[in-house]
Protein backbone atom coordinates (compact mmCIF):
# COMPACT_ATOMS: atom_id res chain seq x y z
CA UNK A 1 0.00 0.00 0.00
CA UNK A 2 1.05 3.59 -0.62
CA UNK A 3 2.03 5.60 2.45
CA UNK A 4 -0.06 8.71 2.94
CA UNK A 5 1.16 11.86 4.65
CA UNK A 6 -0.39 10.63 7.90
CA UNK A 7 1.53 7.35 7.68
CA UNK A 8 4.80 9.22 7.25
CA UNK A 9 3.97 11.58 10.13
CA UNK A 10 3.11 8.60 12.32
CA UNK A 11 6.28 6.83 11.31
CA UNK A 12 8.37 9.87 12.20
CA UNK A 13 6.62 10.19 15.55
CA UNK A 14 7.36 6.53 16.25
CA UNK A 15 11.01 6.84 15.23
CA UNK A 16 11.49 10.00 17.29
CA UNK A 17 10.12 8.49 20.48
CA UNK A 18 12.18 5.32 20.08
CA UNK A 19 15.38 7.18 19.20
CA UNK A 20 14.90 9.68 22.04
CA UNK A 21 14.20 6.92 24.57
CA UNK A 22 17.40 5.13 23.51
CA UNK A 23 19.54 8.26 23.45
CA UNK A 24 18.41 9.35 26.92
CA UNK A 25 18.46 5.95 28.64
CA UNK A 26 21.86 5.41 27.02
CA UNK A 27 23.19 8.57 28.64
CA UNK A 28 21.61 7.69 31.96
CA UNK A 29 23.11 4.16 31.83
CA UNK A 30 26.51 5.66 31.10
CA UNK A 31 26.33 7.55 34.39
CA UNK A 32 27.03 4.22 36.11
CA UNK A 33 30.44 4.09 34.45
CA UNK A 34 32.93 4.12 37.30
CA UNK A 35 30.18 3.93 39.94
CA UNK A 36 28.71 0.45 39.54
CA UNK A 37 28.33 -1.52 42.78
CA UNK A 38 30.81 -4.02 41.37
CA UNK A 39 33.11 -4.05 38.37
CA UNK A 40 30.92 -6.38 36.29
CA UNK A 41 27.92 -4.09 36.78
CA UNK A 42 29.96 -1.06 35.88
CA UNK A 43 30.85 -2.80 32.61
CA UNK A 44 27.30 -4.06 32.04
CA UNK A 45 25.66 -0.62 32.30
CA UNK A 46 28.44 0.95 30.23
CA UNK A 47 28.06 -1.72 27.51
CA UNK A 48 24.29 -1.32 27.47
CA UNK A 49 24.76 2.45 27.20
CA UNK A 50 26.93 1.94 24.13
CA UNK A 51 24.33 -0.35 22.53
CA UNK A 52 21.50 2.10 23.22
CA UNK A 53 23.31 5.10 21.79
CA UNK A 54 24.35 3.06 18.73
CA UNK A 55 20.73 2.03 18.24
CA UNK A 56 19.51 5.62 18.61
CA UNK A 57 21.97 6.66 15.90
CA UNK A 58 20.57 4.04 13.50
CA UNK A 59 17.05 5.39 14.12
CA UNK A 60 18.13 9.02 13.73
CA UNK A 61 19.69 7.95 10.40
CA UNK A 62 16.29 6.59 9.32
CA UNK A 63 14.70 9.92 10.27
CA UNK A 64 17.36 11.71 8.26
CA UNK A 65 16.45 9.59 5.24
CA UNK A 66 12.84 10.68 5.77
CA UNK A 67 13.91 14.32 5.51
CA UNK A 68 14.77 15.28 9.10
CA UNK A 69 18.08 16.97 10.01
CA UNK A 70 21.26 14.93 10.41
CA UNK A 71 21.65 12.80 13.57
CA UNK A 72 24.03 15.12 15.45
CA UNK A 73 21.85 18.15 14.87
CA UNK A 74 18.72 16.31 15.94
CA UNK A 75 20.37 14.74 18.98
CA UNK A 76 22.17 17.82 20.26
CA UNK A 77 20.24 20.94 19.31
CA UNK A 78 16.74 20.35 20.67
CA UNK A 79 15.37 21.54 23.99
CA UNK A 80 13.48 19.31 26.40
CA UNK A 81 10.02 20.23 25.04
CA UNK A 82 11.10 18.93 21.62
CA UNK A 83 12.06 15.52 23.01
CA UNK A 84 9.68 12.57 22.78
CA UNK A 85 11.26 10.26 25.33
CA UNK A 86 9.14 8.83 28.13
CA UNK A 87 9.57 10.37 31.57
CA UNK A 88 10.80 6.97 32.80
CA UNK A 89 14.10 7.20 30.94
CA UNK A 90 14.97 10.80 31.82
CA UNK A 91 14.98 10.46 35.61
CA UNK A 92 18.39 10.50 37.33
CA UNK A 93 19.92 7.08 38.03
CA UNK A 94 19.06 7.34 41.73
CA UNK A 95 19.94 4.27 43.74
CA UNK A 96 20.92 1.03 42.07
CA UNK A 97 17.50 -0.51 42.88
CA UNK A 98 15.70 2.14 40.79
CA UNK A 99 18.16 1.88 37.90
CA UNK A 100 17.80 -1.90 37.86
CA UNK A 101 13.98 -1.84 37.90
CA UNK A 102 13.91 0.82 35.19
CA UNK A 103 16.32 -1.28 33.13
CA UNK A 104 14.08 -4.34 33.56
CA UNK A 105 10.85 -2.53 32.61
CA UNK A 106 12.36 -0.55 29.75
CA UNK A 107 14.32 -3.35 28.11
CA UNK A 108 11.46 -5.83 28.12
CA UNK A 109 9.28 -3.18 26.43
CA UNK A 110 12.00 -2.48 23.87
CA UNK A 111 12.57 -6.17 23.16
CA UNK A 112 8.86 -6.64 22.40
CA UNK A 113 8.72 -3.40 20.40
CA UNK A 114 11.61 -4.59 18.19
CA UNK A 115 9.99 -8.00 17.85
CA UNK A 116 6.78 -6.35 16.61
CA UNK A 117 8.70 -4.01 14.30
CA UNK A 118 10.73 -6.85 12.80
CA UNK A 119 7.57 -7.53 10.72
CA UNK A 120 6.92 -3.89 9.83
CA UNK A 121 5.98 -3.15 6.23
CA UNK A 122 8.41 -0.23 6.45
CA UNK A 123 11.38 -2.38 5.53
CA UNK A 124 14.23 -0.06 6.63
CA UNK A 125 12.78 -0.08 10.16
CA UNK A 126 12.12 -3.82 10.05
CA UNK A 127 15.78 -4.42 9.19
CA UNK A 128 17.17 -2.42 12.11
CA UNK A 129 14.60 -3.95 14.47
CA UNK A 130 15.80 -7.43 13.49
CA UNK A 131 19.32 -6.31 14.29
CA UNK A 132 18.38 -4.74 17.66
CA UNK A 133 16.47 -7.88 18.70
CA UNK A 134 19.68 -9.90 18.92
CA UNK A 135 21.51 -7.17 20.83
CA UNK A 136 18.82 -6.50 23.40
CA UNK A 137 18.62 -10.20 24.26
CA UNK A 138 21.66 -9.60 26.47
CA UNK A 139 20.01 -6.63 28.15
CA UNK A 140 16.85 -8.46 29.17
CA UNK A 141 18.90 -11.47 30.25
CA UNK A 142 21.01 -9.21 32.47
CA UNK A 143 17.94 -7.54 33.98
CA UNK A 144 16.21 -10.87 34.65
CA UNK A 145 19.27 -12.31 36.41
CA UNK A 146 19.57 -9.34 38.75
CA UNK A 147 15.86 -8.94 39.45
CA UNK A 148 15.89 -12.58 40.53
CA UNK A 149 19.16 -12.37 42.48
CA UNK A 150 18.10 -9.24 44.37
CA UNK A 151 14.69 -10.72 45.23
CA UNK A 152 16.52 -13.54 46.96
CA UNK A 153 19.20 -11.30 48.50
CA UNK A 154 17.71 -10.94 51.97
CA UNK A 155 15.10 -8.72 53.57
CA UNK A 156 16.65 -5.33 52.82
CA UNK A 157 17.44 -6.29 49.24
CA UNK A 158 13.91 -7.57 48.63
CA UNK A 159 12.13 -4.63 50.22
CA UNK A 160 14.23 -2.08 48.36
CA UNK A 161 13.51 -3.80 45.05
CA UNK A 162 9.80 -4.12 45.85
CA UNK A 163 9.62 -0.40 46.73
CA UNK A 164 11.42 0.47 43.50
CA UNK A 165 8.90 -1.63 41.54
CA UNK A 166 5.99 0.15 43.27
CA UNK A 167 7.44 3.58 42.54
CA UNK A 168 8.47 2.84 38.95
CA UNK A 169 5.42 0.99 37.66
CA UNK A 170 3.42 4.11 36.74
CA UNK A 171 6.46 5.62 35.08
CA UNK A 172 6.87 2.43 33.06
CA UNK A 173 3.22 2.55 31.94
CA UNK A 174 4.01 6.04 30.63
CA UNK A 175 6.11 4.39 27.92
CA UNK A 176 2.90 3.23 26.25
CA UNK A 177 1.30 6.65 25.88
CA UNK A 178 -0.55 6.47 22.56
CA UNK A 179 0.64 8.63 19.70
CA UNK A 180 -1.55 10.71 17.38
CA UNK A 181 -1.38 8.19 14.55
CA UNK A 182 -1.90 4.82 16.26
CA UNK A 183 -4.78 3.82 13.96
CA UNK A 184 -2.88 4.74 10.79
CA UNK A 185 0.25 2.87 11.85
CA UNK A 186 -1.72 -0.24 12.72
CA UNK A 187 -3.83 -0.08 9.56
CA UNK A 188 -0.77 0.24 7.33
CA UNK A 189 1.13 -2.55 9.09
CA UNK A 190 3.93 -0.21 10.14
CA UNK A 191 3.59 -0.88 13.87
CA UNK A 192 1.10 -2.88 15.94
CA UNK A 193 0.48 0.02 18.33
CA UNK A 194 1.15 0.98 21.94
CA UNK A 195 -1.91 -0.79 23.37
CA UNK A 196 -0.82 -4.15 21.99
CA UNK A 197 2.75 -3.49 23.11
CA UNK A 198 1.60 -2.70 26.66
CA UNK A 199 -0.48 -5.88 26.82
CA UNK A 200 2.37 -8.05 25.58
CA UNK A 201 4.73 -6.33 28.02
CA UNK A 202 2.38 -6.99 30.95
CA UNK A 203 2.06 -10.63 29.86
CA UNK A 204 5.83 -10.87 30.01
CA UNK A 205 6.91 -8.86 33.07
CA UNK A 206 4.09 -9.58 35.52
CA UNK A 207 4.49 -13.40 35.62
CA UNK A 208 8.25 -13.02 35.64
CA UNK A 209 8.27 -10.66 38.63
CA UNK A 210 5.73 -12.81 40.46
CA UNK A 211 7.90 -15.88 39.89
CA UNK A 212 10.75 -14.00 41.62
CA UNK A 213 8.43 -13.32 44.59
CA UNK A 214 7.54 -9.67 43.96
CA UNK A 215 4.05 -8.17 44.06
CA UNK A 216 3.19 -6.16 40.94
CA UNK A 217 0.90 -3.12 41.27
CA UNK A 218 -2.41 -3.24 39.41
CA UNK A 219 -2.62 -1.38 36.11
CA UNK A 220 -6.17 -0.19 36.90
CA UNK A 221 -5.09 1.54 40.10
CA UNK A 222 -1.84 3.02 38.75
CA UNK A 223 -1.63 6.46 37.16
CA UNK A 224 0.57 6.23 34.02
CA UNK A 225 3.21 8.98 33.77
CA UNK A 226 2.09 10.36 30.41
CA UNK A 227 3.37 13.53 28.77
CA UNK A 228 6.85 12.63 27.63
CA UNK A 229 5.76 11.59 24.15
CA UNK A 230 4.31 15.10 23.64
CA UNK A 231 7.24 17.08 25.01
CA UNK A 232 6.03 17.34 28.62
CA UNK A 233 8.96 16.38 30.82
CA UNK A 234 10.18 16.36 34.41
CA UNK A 235 12.67 19.04 35.50
CA UNK A 236 15.40 16.39 35.14
CA UNK A 237 15.61 16.26 31.34
CA UNK A 238 16.87 19.76 30.50
CA UNK A 239 19.91 19.60 32.86
CA UNK A 240 20.84 16.25 31.26
CA UNK A 241 20.56 17.76 27.77
CA UNK A 242 22.67 20.74 28.90
CA UNK A 243 25.35 18.36 30.09
CA UNK A 244 25.23 16.21 26.94
CA UNK A 245 25.61 19.26 24.73
CA UNK A 246 28.07 21.28 26.81
CA UNK A 247 31.00 21.01 24.38
CA UNK A 248 28.77 21.32 21.33
CA UNK A 249 27.23 24.53 22.74
CA UNK A 250 30.61 26.12 23.40
CA UNK A 251 31.90 25.33 19.90
CA UNK A 252 29.38 23.80 17.46
CA UNK A 253 32.10 23.34 14.83
CA UNK A 254 34.51 21.53 17.14
CA UNK A 255 36.08 18.39 15.72
CA UNK A 256 37.65 15.61 17.76
Amino acid sequence: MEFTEKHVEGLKELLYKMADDLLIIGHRNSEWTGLGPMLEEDIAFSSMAQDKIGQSLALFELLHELGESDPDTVAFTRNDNQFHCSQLVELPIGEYDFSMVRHFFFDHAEAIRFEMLADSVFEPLAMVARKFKGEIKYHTMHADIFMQKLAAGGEESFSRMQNAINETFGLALGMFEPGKFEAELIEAGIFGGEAELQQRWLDKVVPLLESFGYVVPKVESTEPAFGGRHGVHTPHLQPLLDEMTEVFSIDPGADW
Partner: protein
Amino acid sequence: MPNSIKALLETVMDPEIPTISIVDLGIVTGIASPQPGHAIIELTPTFSGCPALRIMEQMVHDKLAESGYTHIEVKTTFNKQWNTNMITEKGLIALKQHGLAPPPKHDGYIELDVLSDTPCPYCNSRNTEMHTPFGPTLCRSMHYCKNCLNAFEAFKPVS
Protein backbone atom coordinates in the same frame (compact mmCIF):
# COMPACT_ATOMS: atom_id res chain seq x y z
CA MET B 1 36.55 -8.41 -10.36
CA PRO B 2 34.55 -8.86 -7.11
CA ASN B 3 36.77 -11.86 -6.34
CA SER B 4 39.93 -9.82 -6.47
CA ILE B 5 38.28 -7.23 -4.21
CA LYS B 6 37.33 -9.99 -1.81
CA ALA B 7 40.94 -11.18 -1.74
CA LEU B 8 42.02 -7.66 -0.81
CA LEU B 9 39.41 -7.41 1.93
CA GLU B 10 40.66 -10.70 3.35
CA THR B 11 43.79 -8.79 4.32
CA VAL B 12 41.83 -6.10 6.23
CA MET B 13 41.87 -7.20 9.85
CA ASP B 14 39.44 -6.35 12.65
CA PRO B 15 41.15 -3.48 14.52
CA GLU B 16 40.23 -5.01 17.88
CA ILE B 17 40.90 -8.68 17.00
CA PRO B 18 43.86 -8.60 14.60
CA THR B 19 43.77 -12.36 13.85
CA ILE B 20 40.44 -12.20 11.98
CA SER B 21 39.74 -10.48 8.67
CA ILE B 22 36.54 -8.54 8.11
CA VAL B 23 35.54 -11.11 5.46
CA ASP B 24 35.88 -14.01 7.92
CA LEU B 25 34.05 -11.97 10.55
CA GLY B 26 31.12 -11.94 8.11
CA ILE B 27 30.52 -8.20 8.00
CA VAL B 28 31.18 -7.70 4.28
CA THR B 29 27.68 -8.10 2.85
CA GLY B 30 28.16 -6.64 -0.60
CA ILE B 31 30.95 -6.29 -3.17
CA ALA B 32 30.42 -4.75 -6.58
CA SER B 33 32.66 -3.38 -9.26
CA PRO B 34 30.45 -1.92 -12.00
CA GLN B 35 33.51 -0.94 -14.05
CA PRO B 36 37.30 -1.24 -13.80
CA GLY B 37 38.74 0.81 -10.95
CA HIS B 38 35.36 1.13 -9.23
CA ALA B 39 34.50 -0.62 -5.97
CA ILE B 40 31.26 -0.46 -4.01
CA ILE B 41 31.48 -2.22 -0.65
CA GLU B 42 28.69 -2.82 1.84
CA LEU B 43 29.52 -3.49 5.47
CA THR B 44 27.12 -4.34 8.27
CA PRO B 45 27.83 -3.74 11.97
CA THR B 46 28.39 -6.58 14.42
CA PHE B 47 26.71 -4.37 17.03
CA SER B 48 24.89 -1.09 16.25
CA GLY B 49 27.07 0.68 18.81
CA CYS B 50 30.39 -0.76 17.63
CA PRO B 51 32.90 2.11 17.60
CA ALA B 52 35.29 0.18 15.32
CA LEU B 53 32.93 0.42 12.38
CA ARG B 54 34.03 3.86 11.14
CA ILE B 55 37.65 2.73 11.47
CA MET B 56 36.91 -0.39 9.41
CA GLU B 57 35.20 1.70 6.71
CA GLN B 58 38.36 3.79 6.50
CA MET B 59 40.61 0.71 6.45
CA VAL B 60 38.61 -0.76 3.55
CA HIS B 61 38.79 2.53 1.71
CA ASP B 62 42.57 2.82 2.23
CA LYS B 63 43.23 -0.76 1.18
CA LEU B 64 41.32 -0.35 -2.09
CA ALA B 65 42.88 3.05 -2.79
CA GLU B 66 46.42 1.72 -2.38
CA SER B 67 45.51 -1.17 -4.70
CA GLY B 68 44.64 1.21 -7.52
CA TYR B 69 40.88 1.68 -7.18
CA THR B 70 39.95 5.22 -8.06
CA HIS B 71 36.23 5.28 -7.31
CA ILE B 72 35.49 3.77 -3.91
CA GLU B 73 32.23 3.72 -1.99
CA VAL B 74 32.02 2.07 1.42
CA LYS B 75 28.53 1.97 2.87
CA THR B 76 27.29 0.63 6.18
CA THR B 77 23.82 -0.86 5.98
CA PHE B 78 21.47 -3.10 7.92
CA ASN B 79 20.20 -4.72 4.70
CA LYS B 80 21.61 -8.03 5.81
CA GLN B 81 21.77 -8.23 9.59
CA TRP B 82 24.91 -9.73 11.03
CA ASN B 83 24.80 -12.66 13.43
CA THR B 84 27.58 -14.88 14.71
CA ASN B 85 26.63 -17.77 12.37
CA MET B 86 28.08 -15.57 9.60
CA ILE B 87 31.62 -15.97 10.96
CA THR B 88 33.50 -18.41 8.69
CA GLU B 89 35.19 -21.62 9.93
CA LYS B 90 38.52 -19.91 9.36
CA GLY B 91 37.24 -16.98 11.38
CA LEU B 92 36.26 -19.18 14.32
CA ILE B 93 39.81 -20.58 14.42
CA ALA B 94 41.23 -17.05 14.19
CA LEU B 95 39.18 -15.97 17.21
CA LYS B 96 40.55 -18.85 19.24
CA GLN B 97 44.09 -17.92 18.18
CA HIS B 98 43.43 -14.54 19.75
CA GLY B 99 42.45 -16.26 23.01
CA LEU B 100 38.71 -15.77 22.53
CA ALA B 101 36.31 -18.69 22.87
CA PRO B 102 34.47 -18.74 19.52
CA PRO B 103 30.66 -18.46 19.55
CA PRO B 104 28.72 -21.72 19.11
CA LYS B 105 26.56 -22.08 15.98
CA HIS B 106 22.99 -21.39 17.05
CA ASP B 107 19.43 -21.55 15.78
CA GLY B 108 18.34 -18.35 17.53
CA TYR B 109 18.14 -19.88 21.01
CA ILE B 110 20.58 -17.88 23.13
CA GLU B 111 19.98 -18.22 26.83
CA LEU B 112 22.02 -18.41 29.99
CA ASP B 113 22.60 -22.17 29.67
CA VAL B 114 24.20 -21.70 26.24
CA LEU B 115 26.54 -18.99 27.54
CA SER B 116 27.46 -20.94 30.67
CA ASP B 117 28.52 -23.89 28.53
CA THR B 118 31.48 -22.19 26.84
CA PRO B 119 34.62 -24.34 26.43
CA CYS B 120 37.88 -22.78 27.63
CA PRO B 121 39.98 -21.54 24.65
CA TYR B 122 43.18 -22.53 26.47
CA CYS B 123 42.52 -26.08 27.72
CA ASN B 124 39.19 -26.90 25.98
CA SER B 125 37.60 -27.88 29.31
CA ARG B 126 33.84 -27.35 29.66
CA ASN B 127 34.28 -26.96 33.42
CA THR B 128 33.84 -23.20 33.13
CA GLU B 129 31.48 -20.54 34.40
CA MET B 130 30.32 -17.25 32.97
CA HIS B 131 31.05 -14.19 35.09
CA THR B 132 29.18 -11.65 33.03
CA PRO B 133 27.66 -11.47 29.55
CA PHE B 134 29.34 -8.07 29.09
CA GLY B 135 33.03 -7.53 28.50
CA PRO B 136 35.72 -5.12 27.32
CA THR B 137 33.98 -4.77 23.95
CA LEU B 138 30.31 -5.22 23.05
CA CYS B 139 30.94 -8.56 21.35
CA ARG B 140 32.62 -10.29 24.31
CA SER B 141 31.54 -11.98 27.52
CA MET B 142 33.78 -12.90 30.48
CA HIS B 143 34.30 -16.43 31.83
CA TYR B 144 36.44 -18.41 34.22
CA CYS B 145 37.90 -21.88 33.67
CA LYS B 146 37.78 -24.05 36.78
CA ASN B 147 40.08 -26.58 35.16
CA CYS B 148 43.12 -24.49 34.15
CA LEU B 149 42.17 -21.58 36.46
CA ASN B 150 42.36 -18.99 33.69
CA ALA B 151 39.97 -16.13 33.20
CA PHE B 152 39.02 -15.92 29.55
CA GLU B 153 36.79 -13.99 27.18
CA ALA B 154 34.33 -15.38 24.67
CA PHE B 155 33.02 -13.90 21.46
CA LYS B 156 29.37 -14.12 22.42
CA PRO B 157 26.71 -15.67 20.22
CA VAL B 158 24.32 -13.13 18.68
CA SER B 159 21.14 -13.94 16.79
